[in-house]
């Protein structure tokens, strides 16, 4: 039974990690807490649903479509809203408010379009099989969620660690000004980051939509709240920290449902966050240098 729970926790934690990854990437590179990421997450789920139901696309294609679509939305958000604010050197709070507004608009746009009620993926596109792995019955769906998440995370980590692009991004995270002086195409990389981060958020949305098989316009809000908790637990802007903290939250939630009671599930993220911040103000894995004056 415990093994079963741990497997559930792993698949949930993977999605949290994926979402948090995009979120923390934006903070690390662009220096913005993008509160519309929850809405982007929701858009990704709806984009995949539309691809499946309207266009008859297979699931893997729908996930790709969700990545591209939400990535594009993220890119537009950066170009239209965040870039002018950056150019003006607006204080931290200002992009937060702007992205709150954007999230509100996107949420209610989808609500107007698709209605407020829950939507589902048609059952014929979902893999129904399950495997027996060491005595644990594992659904192919959950396995797929875990594989997709891990694949995306690995690609991203490798890209950041090993490639020229990743080095450039880390230089920007350190100081955009210095990076520009070094001849790095800062603006282009900002665009790329916005695209990838939003795309990851969108894919996380599809995966959660598949995991719980319920899509609704406000589905991004609880995710956003948890994402905030996760990236702080992991240390703001810390990629690996966000991944670990996301997985950790998945386990903490599932285990708390098992051992404490289901109504405490949502308390776990924030209870943890509150406690951790009191003890370690920089987050569990935080080694981030704060941008000072």
């Amino acid at each position, binding site marked *: 039974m415990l093994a079963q729970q741990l497997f559930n926790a792993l698949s949930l934690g993977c999605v949290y990690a994926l979402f948090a990854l995009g979120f923390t990437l934006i903070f690390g590179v662009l220096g913005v807490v993008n509160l519309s990421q929850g809405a982007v997450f929701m858009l990704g789920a709806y984009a995949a649903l539309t691809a499946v139901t309207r266009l008859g696309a297979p699931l893997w294609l729908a996930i790709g479509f969700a990545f591209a679509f939400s990535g594009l939305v993220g890119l537009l958000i950066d170009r239209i809203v965040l870039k002018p604010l950056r150019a003006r050197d607006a204080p931290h*709070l200002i992009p937060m408010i702007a992205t709150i507004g954007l*999230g*509100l608009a996107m949420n209610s746009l989808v609500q107007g379009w698709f209605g407020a009620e829950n939507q589902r993926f048609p059952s014929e596109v979902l893999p129904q099989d399950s495997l027996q792995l060491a005595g644990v019955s594992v659904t192919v769906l959950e396995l797929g969620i875990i594989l997709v998440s891990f694949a995306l995370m690995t690609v991203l980590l490798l890209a950041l660690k090993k490639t020229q692009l990743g080095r450039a991004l880390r230089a920007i995270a350190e100081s955009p000004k210095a990076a520009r002086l070094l001849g790095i195409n800062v603006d282009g990389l900002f665009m790329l980051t916005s695209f990838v981060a939003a795309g990851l958020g969108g894919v996380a949305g599809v995966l959660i939509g598949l995991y719980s098989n319920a899509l609704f316009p406000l589905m991004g809000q609880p995710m956003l709240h948890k994402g*905030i908790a996760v990236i702080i637990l992991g240390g703001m802007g810390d990629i690996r920290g966000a991944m670990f903290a996301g997985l950790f939250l998945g386990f903490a939630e599932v285990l708390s449902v098992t051992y404490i009671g289901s109504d405490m599930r949502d308390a776990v993220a924030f209870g943890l966050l509150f406690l951790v911040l009191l003890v370690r103000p920089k987050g569990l894995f935080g080694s981030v240098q704060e941008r000072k004056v």
Partner: protein
Amino acid sequence: MDSFDNFWSIYSNLVLSLGVNALLALSIYLTLSCGMLAMANAAFMGIGAYTSSILTMNYGWPFSAALAAGMVAPVLVALVIGRPTLRLSGVYLAMATLAFGEVVRLTVLRAEGLTGGALGLNGIPQLTQWWHVLLSVVVVLFVLARLRRSRIGRAFEAIKEDETAAGLMGIDVNGHKMLAFALGGAIAGLAGVLNAHLTFFIGPQEFGFDRGVEILTMTILGGINSLFGPVIGAVIITLLPELLRSFKDYRAVANGLILVVIVLFMPKGLWNPAWLRRRVGLRGRKGVTP
């Protein structure tokens, strides 16, 4: 007076929630003016609302006593959680206080016997009169205006500009931060008490994350360079959904986009005397507006 009665019977709730929101915006203005992005105000509002409602409903306390209790309770909580949280800064402080808000919300959900859990408290006596709200706003504005120009207000501003420098000048940084935090809690609690005894019902959802963000939005939107800013922001955020009624389902779309546009084109918030002066060409007195 007939038309006024007519207007009042339709819009009294709206006007009074304007006042309540103005109080909330002012409560977070206080911590912002001390350079802290603390977002516990929704939670403080909830603590005030629940404390006073339980006292008036279950223990038959008179409104004035319950009101006082509803202001004292958040202050006590602020004093307890302020010590560990206020040493955090920037986004970390915001998130810790938001997390505290969630903890409060979930505590309320769990303590069903006292708070009614998820169902909330129903049938709170409607004790708030319109002049209570008006008087509260006026008194709070007056106190804050005096505070701004006092030694304490100057200290807040010094801390906001540069904490280290303020400390070196001999300002008790932690003490002043705590004062701003606790005082903000009292004002938010006051708003909670008034609102609870106005709307007849309170539930834990009203004091969650979204409310916290909304309070911040009002204040930033209005601008924090003067006391009018938060009030104007509160008015806009409260009225906007009403004004956009004709958009029906897409009302919140317009609402959200207006937020974005204001942030993009009016960087200092809506209330920006310097900009107004330039525009209108008035040669105003140089200095701080109250």
